[in-house]
């Protein structure tokens, strides 16, 4: 499952060797400066777009406003998490540790919105 990295080959065979086992750091293609500033640019542009949308009365009144803003915010969220928090490049255990709770949190939020009448299911 999550312990793919714990390969069972080359087992250190004494306590001594264990204590001195070389560090097996994650070796990944880390993003670089050019990724970083592009990400920052995209984030800024999305933010400008969001605030802009806020000042368009006709759009604010429309049905698409809330979903659009939620989508944009989710997009920014995902970009920061993937690139700045380098979840995209890191060990998958971190993805499990983050997305698992995030899902539970999101579902709880949606559940509460239903229960308090901020969301509806239309039956018939």
């Amino acid at each position: 499952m999550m312990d793919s990295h714990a390969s069972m080959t080359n087992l250190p065979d004494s306590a001594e060797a264990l204590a001195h086992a070389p560090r097996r750091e994650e070796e990944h293609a880390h993003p670089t400066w050019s990724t970083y500033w592009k990400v920052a640019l995209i984030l800024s542009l999305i933010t400008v777009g969001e605030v802009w949308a806020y000042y368009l009365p006709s759009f604010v009144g429309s049905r698409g406003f809330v979903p659009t803003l939620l989508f944009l915010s989710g997009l920014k969220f995902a970009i920061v998490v993937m690139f700045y928090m380098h979840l995209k490049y890191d060990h998958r255990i971190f993805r499990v540790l983050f997305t698992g709770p995030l899902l539970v949190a999101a579902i709880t939020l949606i559940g509460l919105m239903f229960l308090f009448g901020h969301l509806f299911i239309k039956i018939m």
Partner: protein
Amino acid sequence: MTAPATHVSAPAPHHYTTLGLDSRKVAIWAFIGSECMLFVSLISTYLIYKGRSIVGPFPHETWTDPATGHVFKPILNIPVTSASTFVLLMSSLFMVLALAAVQNKEKPKHTRGERILGSSRLWLWMTAIAGATFLGFQAFEFTSFVHEGLSIRTNLFGSSFFTLTGFHGAHVTAGVIWLVTLLAIDYRRGLGPRDSLLVDIAALYWHFVDVIWIVIFTLVYLIR
């Protein structure tokens, strides 16, 4: 009693770990996962109480006090908050640069640009200052709200708004203190590649606080 900061030793644990990862990084991700539930509880409460305050001021609507006839404008200040949002967003850029600078400390730098990009102190300072600026904006926002007649005790909106954004502000504050501590270590003995884990976990925390603000900004400020 305080041991010298030089003891914040190389992040590499000399012990065997199952995944070959440093336990501190595993723990910080678990912590971040847990914080998702913390903030979702706060955000849920804000949304549950949205539009249910009996008296104003309100976030997006005008309100006339029936007793005094006083008119309260919508209280949220979008331009100011957009600016502070932008500052926090940029702080995340500074933070990744700080981490990259620490990781590449020992690589030779030839151009002026490389030297600037490679200065961990510069980027740690920039991140901390951006964080402090965000907090300044928040202090300004809070005081002006109180002047306009919205306190944490005024109505459901006031209670849930100040608590939610206050919790976030407290997280930013902790982050700034964390960054300043890293700076102190940097000045004391210089942060190098072997310290990258120390900076990495601080950065993960910092970005997470930023990410939470991305959500708050949309849900509280932009969506009416």
